Structure formats: C-alpha cells, structure tokens
C-alpha cells in the first residue's frame, strides 16, 4: 500500500493546485510543501522497513498479477533513489516559495513541479518497460515547460533546443522497446530478462543496446549528447536548475541505464566499455570547458557534465568498489550541486545578474550565501572531511584496482581542475574587489534555511562512510546492482506463467 502513494500523492497535489490556487496564490505553496513532506516521510519509512520484507516489495496495480499488469517494485536501489529525489525536491520546493516572487504565475510553477516529481518517482518504482517510458515523458514535458518559465528570449530558445533533442531520443527509446517486445512478447522487465536469459543473445540486441544508450544517454548528458545542458541550466529558475542537475539527470539517465543494463540484460561487456569511454570523455570535456565560462550557472552546468562522468565511470567499472563509488557520488553530488545552484539563485535574487565579471566582494553583505558556497566548493573539490572526498577517492581507487589506470589518473587530474574553476568562482563572486553589481535586496528566510540545511547535510552525510553504517545500509544496494540478474530471481515467484505462452 505504500508504493502507490509515491505516484498518486504528487499527482493529486498537482491537480488540487490547479483547481484551488488560481485565485489565491498562496495556497499553491502550502499544498506543494505538504505533499513533498508527506512523501519524504513515507520514503524514509519505506527505506527502513525494506529489510524486514526480504529485500523486495512488489505491488501490482489493478489487482491482476504480472506479467499482465504494471507492477511497482521496491528494492534497495529504488529505496535509496527515492530518498535522494524526495529530499532534494522538498528542499527545492521550500526554497522556491520565496524565489518565485520574482516571477508571475506561482500556481503554474508548483503544479508543474509536482508533475515532475510524479514522473521521477514513477521512473524509480516501475517494473515495466513502457511504464518507464510514460513516466519519463511526464517528467520531461514538465521539465521543458519549467525551463522556459521566465519567458525571456534566451530561455525560450534553450527550452526549444531541449524539447527538440529530447523528443528525438524518446522516439529512439520507443523504437528499442518495440524491438524488445517483438522478441520477447512481454513488457515486464523481469520477464524480458527471463526470456533473454533462456534464449541467449541474438544479434538484434546490439541495435537495442545502441538505441537505449543514445536515448538514455541524452537524458544523462553524456558527452556526445550534452549540448542541451549548458543552455538549459542558466535559463531555468534556480530551484529547477537544482532539480534538473541534482535529480532529473540521475533518475532518468543513470538509474534507468543501471536498471536496464545490469538487471535485465546482465551487464554485457561491450556496453560497459562504451559507457566507460563516454564517461571518461564527459569528465575531461566537462572539466575543461567550465574553466572558460563567465556565467555562474553555465559554469555549474558544465561542472555537472563532468561529475556525471564520474558517476557513470563508477558504474561502468563493474566491480563492487566501483559501484559503491558510483552510488555515493550520485548521492553526494545531488546534495552539493543543488546547494551550489541554490546559492547562485540567491546571488541572482540579490543582485540581478549572473555574470562573474560584474560580481565581486559579496561576502560582506551576503554572509550565509558565501559560507554555504564555500562549503559546497570544498565538497565538490574533494577536501576531507566533506563528503565529496570519500566518493571521489573510492572511484579513483576502484579505477586503479580494476586495471583502468589511465581513467584513474584522468579522474584525479580533473579533480584538481574542478578545484581551480571553483576557486575562480569564489574569487570573482564573493571575495576580491567590489564589482559593478550591487546588492538590491536581502535574501529571504526560506531561501537561507534551505541552503543552510543542505550545507549541514554536506557534512552529516559523510557519516555514511562509518563502516558499521556502511555495511548495514550501503552493502545491500551494491549487492542489488552487482547481483545482476538476481533481480529476476526475486521477482519470478510473482510471475503468473499461466496459459498464455
């Protein structure tokens, strides 16, 4: 009964906001925050109750049994992703209650935000291929509309570019789903894995691999497909940039790739090699292109491309240490990148500009913002005891111990480049001489609270690395991914292999 709440509570909140908040705009924030808070509490309950149910909860919709219906499957990886998504969503919604005062149409924002959250929760929970496509499209269409929220000319152009590229690759994913259906005559993920395990690997599957890597790769902003991201991130309002870079890229991209290629297809070696190559290219190109940017949020966008390269390299290694590094970097990156985007939003709210050449000397007037940006910078560069240090160290050690020494050296070098460009941000925006931009208004209370909570989480979340906590909570997640097709064995008792075969 818990699992369907993740889908219908934000959906109901979205429609209630449209119904009630058109005349009185303040109700929209109340409904949105209540829904986000409820879902966050339920996701924590689901994560801590999961071991008692044997590691998998399966919930069928409409009372039929799989493979005739859509199932919602919760295992350790899904529970972890749910906590990440809902935590960042709650903090972004809290931040947005006062950030939206600069825009018009509050109820539009919160209704689309709730729809995006529904889509992401659906992608994490679903056990069915076509349902994955439907929920992915729900969250993507809301994201296209939210990127264009300010309706300036550059924002519309960036949203059109994003919508165009997203539409092409979504069609490719549907092509791949069609080919899989024609080969296995079922749509449930576990059943597809079962049929493929019994039938071997036909040559047609390489076309499906290619289509899925292209399709989901654009959502992940891997390197040949990254061109939409540096335009979409500056144009979106700051809480949406935090959601886009912090959770949307990871849910629709990295989580979907890991779930499909590890649990259903059994991690074929050629796919892992391709992902390793694309991940390494992302690290290098994202890192070097962000040194020359002068727009604050555009720099953060290129930095996201680089860090997602780290996560994909971690998952593409295929060893337990690599997967642990990938999972940790996914969690930690969502915290500190959201913190950095919310900081840039606070700077833009106060001084009305994002250009680093015009900012300067803000640390005296915006104390909270400069402190939290410093904490975020230290985390992303990998300085102990902040959380970025542990995840980057694990990824580099995993690379070297798996034999990919070149990748490990590249990862370590680009980490230094990361420190370089973030120090540039600190120098130009906060310390140094006063620039031509003046602080026009002070940062309001809700925005400051959200940033302080995220900065505190940067420190607290490195406590997961304590060995006793790590063994209890993180090892089951690594086992779920490393176990590859044992996901199918766990779902198989529920499969009703009746007379239709």
């Amino acid at each position, binding site marked *: *009964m818990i699992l369907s709440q993740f889908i219908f509570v934000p959906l109901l909140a979205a429609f209630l906001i449209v*119904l009630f908040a058109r005349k009185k705009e303040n109700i929209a924030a109340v409904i949105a925050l209540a829904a986000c808070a409820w879902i966050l509490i339920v996701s924590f309950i689901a994560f801590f109750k999961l071991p008692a149910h044997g590691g998998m909860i399966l*919930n069928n*919709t*409409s*009372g039929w049994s799989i493979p005739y219906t859509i199932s919602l499957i919760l295992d350790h990886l899904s529970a972890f992703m749910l906590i990440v998504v809902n935590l960042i969503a709650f903090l972004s919604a809290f931040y947005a209650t006062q950030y939206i005062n600069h825009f018009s149409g509050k109820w539009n924002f919160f209704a689309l935000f709730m729809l995006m959250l529904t889509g992401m929760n659906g992608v994490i929970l679903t056990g069915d291929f076509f349902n994955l496509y439907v929920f992915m499209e729900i969250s993507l269409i809301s994201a296209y509309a939210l990127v264009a929220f300010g309706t300036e000319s550059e924002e519309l152009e960036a949203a059109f570019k994003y919508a165009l590229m997203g539409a092409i690759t979504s069609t490719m994913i549907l092509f791949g789903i069609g080919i899989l259906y024609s080969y296995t005559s079922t749509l449930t993920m576990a059943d597809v894995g079962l049929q493929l395990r019994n039938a071997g690997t036909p040559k047609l599957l390489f076309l499906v691999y290619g289509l899925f890597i292209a399709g989901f790769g654009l959502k992940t902003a891997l390197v040949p497909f990254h061109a939409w991201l540096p335009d979409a991130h500056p144009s979106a309002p700051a809480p949406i940039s935090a959601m886009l870079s912090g959770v949307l890229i990871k849910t629709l991209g990295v989580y979907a790739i890991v779930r499909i290629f590890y649990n259903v297809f059994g991690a074929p070696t050629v796919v892992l090699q391709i992902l390793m190559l694309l991940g390494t290219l992302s690290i290098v190109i994202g890192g070097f292109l962000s040194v020359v940017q002068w727009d604050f949020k555009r720099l953060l966008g290129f930095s996201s491309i680089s860090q997602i390269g780290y996560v994909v390299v971690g998952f593409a290694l295929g060893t337990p240490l690599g997967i642990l590094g990938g999972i940790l970097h996914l969690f930690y990156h969502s915290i500190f990148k959201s913190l950095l985007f919310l900081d840039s939003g606070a700077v833009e709210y106060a001084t009305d500009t994002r250009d680093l050449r015009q900012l300067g000397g803000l640390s005296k007037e915006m104390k909270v913002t400069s402190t939290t940006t410093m904490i975020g910078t230290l985390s992303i560069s990998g300085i102990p005891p902040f959380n970025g240090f542990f995840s980057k160290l694990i990824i580099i050690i995993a690379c070297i111990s798996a034999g990919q020494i070149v990748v490990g050296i590249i990862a370590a070098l680009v980490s230094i480049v990361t420190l370089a460009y973030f120090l540039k941000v600190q120098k130009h925006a906060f310390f140094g001489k006063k620039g031509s931009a003046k602080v026009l208004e002070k940062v309001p209370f809700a925005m400051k609270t959200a940033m302080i909570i995220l900065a505190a989480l940067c420190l607290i979340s490195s406590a997961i690395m304590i060995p006793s906590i790590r063994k209890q909570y993180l090892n089951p997640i690594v086992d779920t991914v490393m176990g590859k097709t044992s996901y199918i064995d766990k779902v198989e008792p529920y499969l009703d292999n009746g007379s239709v075969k």
Partner: protein
Amino acid sequence: MQNNFPNEGMSVIVKTITRFTVWLIFLYGLYIVLHGHLSPGGGFAGGVIIALSYVHLTLAYGKNFVLERVDKFAMSSLESIAAILFVLTGIVGLYVIGNFLANFMGIGKLYTLISAGYIPMLNIFICVKVGMGLYLVFFYLASFKPQEG
C-alpha cells in the same frame, strides 16, 4: 441568440452549415466515449472529438463570439475536477481491494452497455479532461497577439 461580432470568422455559408454540424460532432464524440468498452475508441478519442466540435465553432464564428458564451474558468475547473475524480477512483480501489486502480464494481454481463466495472466511468472522466484541456490549449494558442514582448 445575438451575434455581437458579425464580421469575424468565416463566410455566411460556413456559419450556416456549422449550425447543423456542431452538435452532430458532439453527439458522435459522446457515442465513442460511452461505448469505449465495446468498440474501439474510449476516453481519449472521444475527448478529442468533443474538443474538435468546440474548435469547429471557434473557427467558424470567431474567437470573441465563443468567449462571450463559454466560461474559461469553468472549463479549467471542470478539467481539474475530472482529473481529481480519476485519482480518487484509484484510491477507493486501493482501500477496498488493496491495489491502486483495482476494479471495485461488478463485472456485469458481457457485451452490454453497463458492464466491465469502472471502465465506462474512467472513460467519461478522461473524456472531460481531454476535451476541455485540448480546447483550452487551442484557445490560448490562438489568443497570442504578435506585438507583445
């Protein structure tokens, strides 16, 4: 019924024929929605046809004529209420049977109009939402003036 904007829209021939065909299109859309569990169609297709009947009226008579007679706020509220009722039907299924969107009404006799559980009800909700939503999208897209901005 008085036409305050006689010079907008299309010619007199189109306006006269529209008076005969608008309600036929609406009726056809309703037929497709209500027989959604017996023949092809269902909620979405019927909703699109009902929206098309409104679009037909708008194209023939002009936007201001329709704006006087149709309340946009009521259409938007009706759309949201239909969506909320859809999700509430799913929640009732959750409490009665234990799965979201489970069938809690009886199945009925095969091939009759009142059968197949809650599917005709869901078809009607989807028809209302899609019809109102699609017409409002068309209306707002047609209201853009080229000089703003």
